[in-house]
């Protein structure tokens, strides 16, 4: 089951300008996915995402992931934004963070499908009386 089929939508937060992001996301076929430009990293800060340590940014796992990406045709470029900013992923609903957190290293790849499953407290229709029926239906047909 895909993330969207679970009734959850995906959105990205990035530090680039919207102009740069439009090119980047289009390259990966993600132009229509909502994205939020946060060059001042205010949203990163609001979610508790900090700058990484040396091990989080340049440890063995990061080199391994980088090598794998290189093999798949991804290159290197000089960062135009804060290279120390740690990434993360969160499930948010009605202004509340329900799951997720910062990545352990910059090479981390969490189980996004599990993270996107909204099935705990804060996800029930009784918790969110204004929820759209389609979102509730999608989760109830799991």
């Amino acid at each position: 089951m895909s993330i969207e089929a679970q009734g959850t939508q995906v959105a990205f937060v990035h530090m680039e300008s919207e102009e740069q992001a439009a090119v980047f996301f289009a390259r990966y076929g993600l132009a229509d996915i909502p994205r939020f430009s946060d060059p001042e990293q205010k949203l990163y800060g609001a979610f508790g995402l900090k700058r990484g340590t040396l091990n989080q940014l340049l440890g063995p796992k990061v080199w391994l992931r980088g090598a794998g990406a290189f093999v798949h045709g991804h290159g290197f470029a000089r960062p135009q934004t804060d290279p120390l900013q740690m990434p993360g992923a969160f499930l948010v609903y009605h202004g509340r963070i329900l799951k997720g957190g910062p990545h352990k290293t910059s090479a981390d790849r969490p189980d996004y499908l599990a993270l996107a499953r909204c099935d705990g407290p804060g996800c029930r229709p009784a918790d969110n009386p204004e929820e759209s029926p389609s979102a509730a239906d999608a989760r109830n047909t799991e």
Partner: protein
Amino acid sequence: MLLQSNTLVATKDQGGTSLEKHTDRRPTLLVFLRHFG
């Protein structure tokens, strides 16, 4: 953890829709990226 409403309202996507509206409409998996380089 409850996020500050003004943060969600002020943050808008490429089409001008606020993050608050997105996350009120449906559960949203918000993926924070590193730099693109």
